[in-house]
């Protein structure tokens, strides 16, 4: 009809506004209407009475003519206001009332939802922070990580020399700029003095253009100037925001002042912004306090030292930049002074990847698995809730029948039930949000977990949107089935049905049984997945690291040898003598780089005169150690350890690891043989069992050890082996160190176990989450089974009573109930196991030392789930067997 269509947009907007306005002015409008209708009826009665009717008769006729007053009012209200909103308000009020009445149901439902939704929000915020959100830099899509593919020789093979860096910067055509940082700084490598006790701080050298390339703006002061990276320039530094807050109480006047670093005054030129966290992007799990410009002219002889990040020109794709670098890299010199070093990088071309991919790409698979696990939890929660709602709607059959008898349509009933589930799910989501707020806060402050961008995990706008989405999704999922079920029933039957009827009860139970089966199957998948990951994690913990992490601890020590090998040996010898004298210390030694932390490699040992193909030998990790270090670490040595007599003037000596010795000497005994390394002949005095130097899960590479008296170390970590807790020794060790060197900063002992824990922390983090999700899933499945079995026992109280009266024994009744449980669980477990095999194959890449079809895990998890299911069924079975036939029969 033409008059039904909106004449124009403005017209329909105006009508909408009028309706909205009417909605909020219900009272006065209703009063108006009441008065109008009363006048109407009075007019009509008066007119009838004029024809001689009595008042009563006139009124009777008028009311017939008028029709239902309430209906007329309702119709007028519907045309006037917003009927949808009105119904919603009614449904909401009604939902709140019914949910309030059934408090125990509501509390359980909301708690389950809160846990399920909360877990989802928390995982989403982690995924969002690590995978989705762009890096906190300007135009982050232009930033690329520039390194060859990761290989056996660790950081040294992922970095470039100062010369190569300079050349690349000039020769490329696709980059706006290339920046780099010194990749071999260990933590606490600088000491800040002039503020009481010397304080160990972590400084990183970056190229002068580093922050400009990333697009980081200082919050105070300025960035480095190009000339500040020149040789002999006035030393300057930029402070990280966190360090500025913790060390200088966010004092803005620090900019322009000098601070003492390792005894040199260094001018603070600026403060970096809060959202710039170097550690969380480039070396997850560590903090960096300050940055200094790398003076490349001082570093030309240092070999591969710079890790590179480039910013491509606008519009240049990674593939174009890659093609460019493929041309440029073979033309680079390792060191321009040596023409023969042209083309050393030819073998290992740069593999450009988006910086974001470098930072989080490795974690994508784990995170997706985590996301799927938590999604499964949400499904289980919904199935569980659907089950609870069904149980509840069974007891509300009559209510629904009555409502539909009074004229409520099917849609209206479904709508009511959906409103109820929406109220539950939104309440759950709110609580879940609070929960995930706590969890994300906790996670963001776990500095010890080596995951990138973890400090930026928070509940943000995207998370809130996600919360709304899953709350609605869950509400529809668990509200629709009971809604359809409850509304699709024959009214007459339902009203007649005493609630104990069998036909309807059976159909109802079938739906619930299907729900429970799917719940068990989902829980089974989660459990098997978690079991496989847990077993992998246990295998990881079981890896022979080549050293004994327990009962050992390390502390950073400071020394001043003036660059003289002689002096260094004497200093360390005295230091270790003093430390060894402390009661409780079994062994001690010094190393420059601890395993699983920073590492470096230089060339490789060779057998003199033997020809090796270029690239045949992997670079070897190099460590400078003192006598006693290997014992303190619990490394397994054959041959002899270094002694203090292996001095600068003595024979050059070296210790190899098994992998390199096996290759060089083809499995023969290496001890006593000679090798050449960096053009120097060295005698192999010992071979140690391979140490996991860069990670726990990979294969160790080549390792060589030199005595500190013959090669200059890059720092000093004192390792002590003791049965005492390291903290108990800290003060006596520290006072000895201070006695020897008043400049010793106030460092803290780190146990070697902590270092190992840090290395496995990402896996631990994932396993912990997946296992707790699986546990939650199993509890929910058990709850589901308990609910269904317990309900069916209640429904059959009478039947069981009759059976017992007819002579069924207690154990027979129990067996009957448990048998039913067993059937449900078995079907679920069989389906779940089939699904698990598929899932296990999909996560095979995340497993360690465990096959995807690991029979132990499958059997263990299936047994566990079966046992939990039987327990859940046993409780109602016990109740069933205690039914007193007399009471049961009388109750009907």
């Amino acid at each position, binding site marked *: *009809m*033409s008059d039904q269509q909106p004449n124009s947009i403005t017209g329909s907007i105006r009508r909408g506004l009028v309706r909205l306005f009417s909605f909020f002015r219900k009272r006065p409008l209703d009063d108006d209407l009441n008065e*109008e209708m009363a*006048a*109407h009826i009075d*007019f009509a009665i008066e007119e009838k009475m004029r024809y001689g009717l009595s008042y009563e008769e006139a009124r009777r006729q008028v009311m017939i003519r*008028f029709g239902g007053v309430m209906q007329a009012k309702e119709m007028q209200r519907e045309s006037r206001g917003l009927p949808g909103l009105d119904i919603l308000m009614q449904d909401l009020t009604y939902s709140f009332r019914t949910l309030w009445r059934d408090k125990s149901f509501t509390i359980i439902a909301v708690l389950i939802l809160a846990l399920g939704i909360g877990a989802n929000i928390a995982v989403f915020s982690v995924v969002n922070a690590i995978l989705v959100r762009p890096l906190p830099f300007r135009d982050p899509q232009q930033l690329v990580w520039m390194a060859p593919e990761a290989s056996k020789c660790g950081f040294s093979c992922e970095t470039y020399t100062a010369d190569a860096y300079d050349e690349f910067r000039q020769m490329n055509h696709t980059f706006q700029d290339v920046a780099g940082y010194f990749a071999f700084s260990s933590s606490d490598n600088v000491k800040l003095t002039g503020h009481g006790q010397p304080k160990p701080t972590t400084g990183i050298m970056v190229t002068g253009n580093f922050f400009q390339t990333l697009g980081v703006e200082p919050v105070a002061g300025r960035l480095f100037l190009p000339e500040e990276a020149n040789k002999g320039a006035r030393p300057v530094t930029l402070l990280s925001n966190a360090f500025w807050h913790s060390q200088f109480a966010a004092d803005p006047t620090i900019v322009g002042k000098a601070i003492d670093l390792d005894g040199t005054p260094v001018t603070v030129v600026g403060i970096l912004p809060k959202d710039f966290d170097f550690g969380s992007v480039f070396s997850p799990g560590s903090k960096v306090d300050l940055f200094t410009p790398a003076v490349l002219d001082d570093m030309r002889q240092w070999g591969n030292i710079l890790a590179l990040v480039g910013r491509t020109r606008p519009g240049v794709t990674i593939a174009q930049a890659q093609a460019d670098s493929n041309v440029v890299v073979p033309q680079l010199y390792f060191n321009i002074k040596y023409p023969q070093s042209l083309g050393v990088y030819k073998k290992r071309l740069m593999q450009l990847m988006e910086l974001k991919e470098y930072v989080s790409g490795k974690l994508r698979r784990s995170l997706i698995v985590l996301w799927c696990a938590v999604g499964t939890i949400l499904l289980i929660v919904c199935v569980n809730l659907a089950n609870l709602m069904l149980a509840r709607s069974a007891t509300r059959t009559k209510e629904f029948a009555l409502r539909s008898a009074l004229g409520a349509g099917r849609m209206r009933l479904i709508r009511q039930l959906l409103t109820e589930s929406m109220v539950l799910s939104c309440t759950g989501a709110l609580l879940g949000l609070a929960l995930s707020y706590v969890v994300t806060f906790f996670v963001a402050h776990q500095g010890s977990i080596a995951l990138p961008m973890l400090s930026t995990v928070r509940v943000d706008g995207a998370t809130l949107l996600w919360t709304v989405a899953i709350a609605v999704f869950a509400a529809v999922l668990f509200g629709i089935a009971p809604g359809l079920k409850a509304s699709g029933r024959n009214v007459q039957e339902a009203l007649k049905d005493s609630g104990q009827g069998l036909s309807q009860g059976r159909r109802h139970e079938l739906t619930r049984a299907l729900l429970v089966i799917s719940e068990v199957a989902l829980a089974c998948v989660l459990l098997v997945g978690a079991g496989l990951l847990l077993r992998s994690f246990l295998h990881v913990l079981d890896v022979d690291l080549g050293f004994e992490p327990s009962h050992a601890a390390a502390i950073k020590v400071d020394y001043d040898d003036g660059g003289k090998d002689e002096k260094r040996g004497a200093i360390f010898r005295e230091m270790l003598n003093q430390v060894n004298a402390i009661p409780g210390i079994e062994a001690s030694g010094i190393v420059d780089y601890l395993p699983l932390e920073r590492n470096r490699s230089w060339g490789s040992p060779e057998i003199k005169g033997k020809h090796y193909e270029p690239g045949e030998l992997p670079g070897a990790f190099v460590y400078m150690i003192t006598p006693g270090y290997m014992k303190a670490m619990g490394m397994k040595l054959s041959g002899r350890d270094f002694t203090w007599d292996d001095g600068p003037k003595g024979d050059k000596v070296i210790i190899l690891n098994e992998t390199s010795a096996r290759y060089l000497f083809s499995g023969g005994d290496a001890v006593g043989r000679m090798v050449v390394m960096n053009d120097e002949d060295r005698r192999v005095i010992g071979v140690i069992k391979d140490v996991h130097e860069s990670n726990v899960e990979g294969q160790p590479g080549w390792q060589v050890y030199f005595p500190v008296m013959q090669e200059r170390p890059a720092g000093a970590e004192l390792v002590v082996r003791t049965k005492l807790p390291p903290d108990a020794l800290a003060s006596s060790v520290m006072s000895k160190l201070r006695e020897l060197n008043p400049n010793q900063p106030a460092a803290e002992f780190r146990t070697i176990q902590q270092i190992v824990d840090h290395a496995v922390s990402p896996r631990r983090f994932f396993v912990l989450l997946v296992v707790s999700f699986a546990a939650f899933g199993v509890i929910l499945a058990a709850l589901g089974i308990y609910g269904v079995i317990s309900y069916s026992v209640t429904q059959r109280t009478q039947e069981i009573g009759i059976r017992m009266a007819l002579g069924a024994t207690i154990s027979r009744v129990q067996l009957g109930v448990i048998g039913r449980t067993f059937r449900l669980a078995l079907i679920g477990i069989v389906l779940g196991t089939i699904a698990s095999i598929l899932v296990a194959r999909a996560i095979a890449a995340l497993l360690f030392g465990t096959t995807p079809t690991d029979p132990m895990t499958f059997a263990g998890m299936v047994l566990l789930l079966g046992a939990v299911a039987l327990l859940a069924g046993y409780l109602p079975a016990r109740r069933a067997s205690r039914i007193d036939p007399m009471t049961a029969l009388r109750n009907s």
Partner: protein
Amino acid sequence: MAESKLDLLQGTLDLMVLQTLSAMGSLHGYGIARRIEQVSDDAVLLNQGTIYAALVRLQHRGWISAAWGISDNNRRAKFYSITRAGRKQLAKDAAYWQRLSDLMGRVLTMDSEGSA
């Protein structure tokens, strides 16, 4: 299905109300209802109460206006009158109904040869 039937009825009632107000000037709800009954010789069996939904709908569309006033027999009552927009709409709808009923007349008197 039930809804579309109701729509037709509503539209019809709306048009009747507009025509009544256009012919009779300002009237209260009861007056409108009575007038429609009289004109149709009580052939329209309409629940008088339903007129109020139609009145509020027409008001929202801006086709009629309402004001409280005093009736001939000194009672307070709400009086409705047609607006200019309402008159325009009435003309449009009346023409539409005329065409529709002509068409329906022709279709329903069609014989087996297909000519009216």
